[in-house]
């Protein structure tokens, strides 16, 4: 999805914010939905007229991959709160399920971790119209909802595929497959990691290089509402299993469906099969689910690094095409980068310098935090590989739950898997000496053969 602007007078990229805002009433830009929403909202606060074209060939009401942005579809606890405070309350038709707990599954047992306030503040959504073969219903796509918000603010939808990006008289020029060709004052890329559009930005010659990515697997099982309720409840089930190449997996309840997400190194059909046959996974599915076939599946890429130079004069890339949070809260990262880019372009200008000074720090903050995320997941990998460590971890969570003591481990796990807190905070919490002592004590108990379960 891309942004655009008018072919009018100005050619300078270094306009002061005042000049830029003053001129922008004559201008058009092209961009992604959350960006468009915040850009238009900020412009309206400043009584500035801006014309925004959103290039999106996808129809989010369509079923299956053609209408879907291919992700797990979790709106994190912190993002639900932030959106509500911003005045964006998710309508009931948009989320499939409110989630109030996580169940952590390991090779030796499971731990139930509920939200600190015992409140449903996480939601599961379908990014598109729903899985392949699902019946038309009153449910709405999450991305369709966001698109409608941007349209209500005045953005114009261009349902055409962008074929090429180039420069014309110092401005970005967008050419679509249908032959539409227009230059804009500002071009915003939020194209996701799974499209060839990233190459279009690389070809513009300002030094942009797409982020590193790894292959994941997402599939949908139609279990029926009763089975979803019975086997998954209102919990997201996270699996930290000792399977090669598997970082972690999650089973997410969504109305009649359960979405399975596998993350790790180069996930393939063999690993998916091995995972589904694991006893701990089988226990989460109905007994007759052995022959269950996914009704919709994909192997999308996931961002695991940050882009190089995701901005230039009159161009900025946000969300997955810029930087995203490691494994978690991609929608939240897209919100943060979209808003930072929108505010920068309205208040500071659209030059590379403006984006470097005001937009890039937000990206750097996420990227730096991902460094801590790598450390947190490296630690969980070590735990995954050691059976005694599984016992110790579950033992600590069980003790915290039993004794209602400081829930250091439970909240660290909660924040890791929900993406509710920065990885840095999670990492620092795990360094607390008391937690280390409790893990050690549980390791000793584990040696004596004590099996701890937190459920």
């Amino acid at each position, binding site marked *: 999805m891309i942004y655009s602007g008018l072919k009018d007078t100005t050619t300078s990229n270094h306009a002061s914010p005042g000049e830029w805002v003053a001129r922008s009433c004559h201008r058009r830009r092209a961009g992604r939905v959350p960006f468009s929403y915040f850009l238009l909202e900020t412009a309206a606060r400043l009584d500035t007229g801006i014309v925004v074209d959103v290039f999106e060939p996808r129809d989010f009401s369509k079923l299956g991959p053609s209408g879907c942005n291919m992700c797990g579809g979790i709106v994190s606890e912190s993002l639900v709160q932030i959106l509500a405070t911003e005045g964006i309350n998710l309508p009931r*038709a948009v989320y499939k399920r409110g989630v109030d707990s996580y169940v952590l599954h390991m090779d030796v047992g499971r731990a139930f971790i509920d939200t600190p306030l015992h409140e449903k503040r996480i939601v599961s959504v379908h990014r598109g119209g729903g899985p392949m073969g699902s019946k038309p219903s009153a449910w709405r796509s999450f991305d369709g909802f966001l698109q409608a918000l941007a349209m209500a603010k005045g953005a114009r939808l261009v349902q055409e595929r962008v074929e090429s990006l180039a420069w014309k008289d110092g401005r970005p020029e967008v050419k679509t497959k249908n032959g539409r060709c227009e230059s804009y004052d500002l071009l915003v890329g939020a194209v996701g990691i799974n499209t060839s559009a990233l190459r279009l930005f690389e070809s513009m010659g300002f030094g942009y290089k797409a982020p590193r990515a790894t292959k994941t697997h997402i599939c949908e099982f139609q279990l029926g509402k009763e089975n979803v309720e019975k086997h998954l409840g209102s919990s997201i089930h996270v699996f930290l299993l000792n399977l090669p190449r598997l970082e972690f997996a999650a089973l997410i309840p969504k109305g009649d469906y359960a979405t399975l997400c596998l993350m790790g190194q180069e996930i393939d059909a063999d690993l998916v099969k091995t995972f589904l046959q694991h006893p701990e996974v089988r226990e989460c599915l109905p007994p007759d689910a052995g022959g269950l076939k996914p009704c919709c599946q994909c192997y999308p890429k996931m961002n695991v690094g940050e882009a190089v130079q995701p901005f230039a004069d009159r161009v900025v890339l946000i969300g997955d095409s810029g930087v995203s949070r490691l494994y978690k809260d991609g929608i939240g990262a897209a919100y943060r980068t979209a808003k930072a880019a929108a505010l920068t372009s309205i208040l500071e200008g659209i030059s590379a310098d403006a984006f470097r000074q005001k937009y890039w720090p937000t990206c750097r903050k996420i990227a730096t935090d991902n460094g801590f995320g790598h450390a947190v997941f490296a630690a969980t990998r070590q735990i995954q590989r050691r059976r005694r460590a599984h016992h110790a971890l579950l033992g600590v969570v069980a003790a915290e739950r039993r004794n209602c003591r400081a829930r250091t481990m439970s909240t660290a796990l909660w924040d890791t898997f929900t993406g509710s807190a920065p990885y840095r905070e999670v990492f620092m919490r795990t360094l607390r000496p008391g937690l280390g002592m409790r893990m050690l004590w549980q390791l000793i108990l584990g040696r004596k053969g004590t099996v701890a379960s937190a459920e």
Partner: protein
Amino acid sequence: MPSSILGRRYRDGDTIVRQGEKGEHMYVIQMGQVEVVEEVGDKEVRLSVLGDGDIFGEMALFDHQARSATVRALGEVRVLTVDKRTLMRRLQEDPSFALRLIQRMASRIRELNTEVARLKAASM
């Protein structure tokens, strides 16, 4: 389509926020209505009724004073709790995040000004 299931459910008459208590959270109404009442002596004065999308409890987060009023559910209501930490973290990264809260507070000041003017006029 079922109604909102986000946040926590309160039944008619349940107290969500109590006057005089320390405030650690802010709230956004997802579904239903609440009444805001202030205890003056042994009497209760209803200050306002809030509905879907309205925010309450934000004042105590900013002025570090005790809750200025009690908020009770009017019928069944769903309320989403916003953590102080989440709010402050976001404000630190994006001060424009506070605009809606400022807008809300400004609108309340306007309403209060109108009310004060009306009371003064009535007592003249």
